[in-house]
């Protein structure tokens, strides 16, 4: 399982970095979202990969076998903050587009 998850993280990082370095604001925001996925999975995976042992306590649950809840809590926070910043970046890129007339990250006009 680890190997799949690692490769997934790697591929998403690649796609995310590639998009992040593109000149169009939309590409950048998509890239940031993609990188967020990669990073969230990374944080998540750090706690170890376990199937079907959600950190939910029941009467008959052996706590030591459960998945590490800490990375999950961290990812939850990261998801929320990622959501917020995506929204923000979106609005800023819209404002930039409105003010400069282009969707280039440097506000440069398109060569025509």
């Amino acid at each position, binding site marked *: 399982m680890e190997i799949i998850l690692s490769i997934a993280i790697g591929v998403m990082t690649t796609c995310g970095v590639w998009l992040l370095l593109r000149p169009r604001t939309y590409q950048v925001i998509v890239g940031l979202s993609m990188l967020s996925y990669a990073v969230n999975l990374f944080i998540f995976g750090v706690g170890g990969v376990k*199937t*079907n042992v*959600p950190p*939910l306590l029941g009467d008959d649950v052996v706590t030591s076998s459960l998945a590490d809840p800490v990375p999950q809590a961290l990812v939850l926070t990261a998801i929320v903050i990622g959501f917020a910043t995506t929204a923000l970046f979106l609005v800023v890129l819209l404002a930039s587009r409105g003010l400069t007339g282009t969707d280039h990250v440097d506000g440069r006009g398109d060569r025509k």
Partner: protein
Amino acid sequence: MSAIIIFTAVSLAQLMIGAAMAIAAVRMFRGPRAQDRIIGLDALYINAMLLLVTFGIGTGRVVYFEAALVIGMLGFVSTVALAKFLMRGEVIE
């Protein structure tokens, strides 16, 4: 015995659903038009939901039900928004 039956059935079902998801993804990839991609995403959502339910059966846990229910209840919202965007060029007027 019943465990083996269920295990086999769940595995087979998941494989089929997985194939269905792959096909949906192919549609999202190939299009040819935006509506095809959107409907592909919708199908992917539904199939994912089915996958989660089978996963629940396979693991014998009900806690994964919530995720499936969220897809069932709210999964359509993004599709609606996408469709409206196609139709009107604007999501909220």
